[in-house]
């Protein structure tokens, strides 16, 4: 398997607070890599550092071997990394269609963009129905779909997703996870941050545990389900009981 994203010793912070204290990890091509960890572990900071929005200090970030650390956010998007940010961050007073067009901002070629736009709308019929509606008036689930579709409009090699299921009803969460696997099957590598550990581990091909600004464990999701220590520390005892019951 080839490595799409390789991170070595990455540090970054907000002001005096050091959020990332030397993160190292590899994301392999074609899979769904999942990043787990408690609140404040630095997961969102890592997403912003990878996309250049949070300025990375030391270390390196390479995308298919090319260094992208230190590039401006728009150059990182151009090089093929797209982010579905935490809390979706759709443009609230712009229409669904305009949001999608903004997603393709870094691309040129009107014909191709229009074709992708049509493809996105057929993939997400809900967005088709609401294409002229302001994104701020959509439901949480629809906004999440829009955020994913917007990110896909840049034709990314690597799609970063920061807690796509946060604040959504269980049925909608299932729908979002269905969309994630669908996107993955189209050949886009996915690097996913999730609080919903069970759902995430079900679709993940690889996972990392992050704590206090460092990746402290990485492995196969199947063995993680077996591992007692990880069960208790990260999946909660109720989860362990749930597994025993099943």
């Amino acid at each position, binding site marked *: 398997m080839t490595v799409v994203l390789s991170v070595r010793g990455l540090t970054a912070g907000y002001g005096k607070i050091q959020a990332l204290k030397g993160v190292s990890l590899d994301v392999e091509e074609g899979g769904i890599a999942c990043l787990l960890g408690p609140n404040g572990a630095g997961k969102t900071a890592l997403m912003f550092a990878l996309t250049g929005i949070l300025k990375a200090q030391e270390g390196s970030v390479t995308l298919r071997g090319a260094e992208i650390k230190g590039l401006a956010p728009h150059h990182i998007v151009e090089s093929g990394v797209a982010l579905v*940010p935490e809390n979706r961050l759709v443009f609230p007073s712009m229409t669904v269609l305009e949001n999608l067009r*903004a997603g393709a901002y870094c691309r040129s070629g009107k014909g191709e963009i229009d074709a992708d736009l049509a493809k996105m709308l057929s993939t997400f019929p809900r967005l088709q129905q609401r294409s002229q509606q302001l994104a701020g008036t959509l439901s949480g689930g629809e906004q999440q779909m829009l955020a994913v579709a917007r990110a896909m409009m*840049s034709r990314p090699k690597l799609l970063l997703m920061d807690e796509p299921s946060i604040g959504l009803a269980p049925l909608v969460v299932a729908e979002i996870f269905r969309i994630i696997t669908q996107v993955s099957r189209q050949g886009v590598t996915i690097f996913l941050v999730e609080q919903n550990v069970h759902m995430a581990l079900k679709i993940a091909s690889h996972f990392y545990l992050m704590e206090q600004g460092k990746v402290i464990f990485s492995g196969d999701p199947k063995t993680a389900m077996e591992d007692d220590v990880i069960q208790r520390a990260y999946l909660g005892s109720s989860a362990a009981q749930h597994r025993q019951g099943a």
Partner: protein
Amino acid sequence: MTAFGDIAQTTIDGVAAGALYALFALGFTMIFGVIRRANLAYGSSVMLGLYVATLAWMTFDISIVLCFAIASAVAIAAGLYVQMLCFPSRAADRQQPNDAHRLMVSVAASFAVWMQLEELATLNMPAHLYPFPALAGDAVIELVGLSIRSDALIVLVSALAVCAALYLTLYRTRFGLGIRATVDLPRAASVVGINVSGVFRKAFVIAAIVGTIGAFVACATAEQLTPKLGMWLTLKAMLAMMVGGLGSLRGAVVAGVALGVLEAHVQRHFGPQLRDASTYLVLFAVLAWRAWRPGAATQFGVGVLGGRGVR
């Protein structure tokens, strides 16, 4: 002249003046929309351009077109200088710590630069009045009993043209999409790969051009240039923007024209002393109304210097 004719004539004069206010407000709103901060140095950067232009005109007797080109170029340079100094692009990121603090620093810094640019102009050209090239002379066009000065017509036409051009740029181009996205949610604009600092600079450039068009036409109509221009421009722009709803381009145009018409009527009936007072009274009423609406007070209170509400 009939009573109706009198009202119509005053209204026409008011619309011509108001069209200028609308242009100033458009430039000011452009910057406010993108950075969510009031750029107090806006008027003085435009003024500096006109000072340099009229100096060149007096010295070398250049054409009015070249005069305008010089005024725009200097205003753009001054605008970018203000942006670099007072409104660096990181300031747009509302997730940065100490945001309220940064906001005050930016606005206070722009006040300092206002003084600096104005001093730069007035220390080098200390007279109270300078001549300014005339645009169209005093030809008067008569139409169904109403008269309109040809330069007032030019004011109206250029204001309309600028509004149309700005609208088409914002809503029909990729460049406009980038600006609107940045205005809507700066953090998300970075996420989709819009160069936010580039958008910042572009907003200042557009504002400088729009402001220069307005101020140039105003000075060419009056055929003179005074050191009060900078303050006058910033105040009228802020007034129109605040009355029109912060950050709303459409509101800025409507409020600018409305304030012009109001001023014209007040001056006609109550004299020039009450003219300026009338617009401040309107602003006071608008602010008071917003403040008394439950829940809107803090939002708008912050809004005068920054805050949301950008469309």
